[in-house]
């Protein structure tokens, strides 16, 4: 049995303070974005391959791909908007 009274749960207020030495938040975010964009590129290529191969030349294929690329690039631009011009 512990002889010390239980301490109330106190969540950390500064999560960035837990980063290892030498790793800046900016570098971490940069690598995080690399991973996300790589995942996105791979996923998009696979999905477009399926659209072009199996949609039977449907009218929906190219609008769907175009919409996906447009929204994705808009979100990427938003994600980079804070970091590109630091």
């Amino acid at each position, binding site marked *: 049995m512990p002889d010390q009274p239980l301490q109330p*749960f*106190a*969540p950390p*207020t500064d*999560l960035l303070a837990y980063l290892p030495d030498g790793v800046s*938040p*900016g570098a971490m*975010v940069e690598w*995080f*974005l690399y991973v*996300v964009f790589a*995942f*996105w590129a791979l*996923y*998009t290529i*696979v*999905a477009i391959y*399926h*659209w072009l*191969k*199996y*949609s*039977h030349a*449907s009218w*929906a294929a190219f609008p*769907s791909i175009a919409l*996906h690329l447009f*929204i*994705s690039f808009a*979100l*990427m631009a*938003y*994600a*980079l*908007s*804070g*970091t590109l011009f*630091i």
Partner: protein
Amino acid sequence: MKEFELEPGEHVVMETRKHWFLFLLELLPFAVIAIIPFVLPKILPLAPQLAPYAELFDYGTPIMRAVLGAWLLIAWTSAWGAFTKYFLDVWVLTTQRLVDIEQRGYFSREVSSVLLSRVQDVTTDVVGVIPSLLGFGNINVQSAGATEKFHMNGIPRPEQMRDLIVKYIPEEDAKPLGV
């Protein structure tokens, strides 16, 4: 068609997918994921111990903009993937057969068909309030064979599809059941 070749004189009568309402239900988790970053800053202050975390969700900072953008990008891409799967999952009725093209996932696709001349029984069922109001349900096609059955779940206007299937069953095979 890449999955199957149409025979001479065969043509596609109808191509259908799951009802749009079922697709919207599939999108629901992605919508919830997408709004989490906007809801959390409003919910966290309700719990005093978690209130300090609400300040982290300041989307004016470069880091949080990057995180939010990436989060929404993942949610959007996943939702678009669900639409891709929905669109490529299709039933095709031709003048000679019924084809079920099931897109289980990427690089996982199953194409099965039943000749209309082998169809013995077609039943539809619409169960529940929402399916009844929106007009979608299931079709079960029993073909000649011990256990061969063809299921089409969540199909819009199942009665219309059933009538079309019955219409295209060859006359000489359309014998009354139980005779």
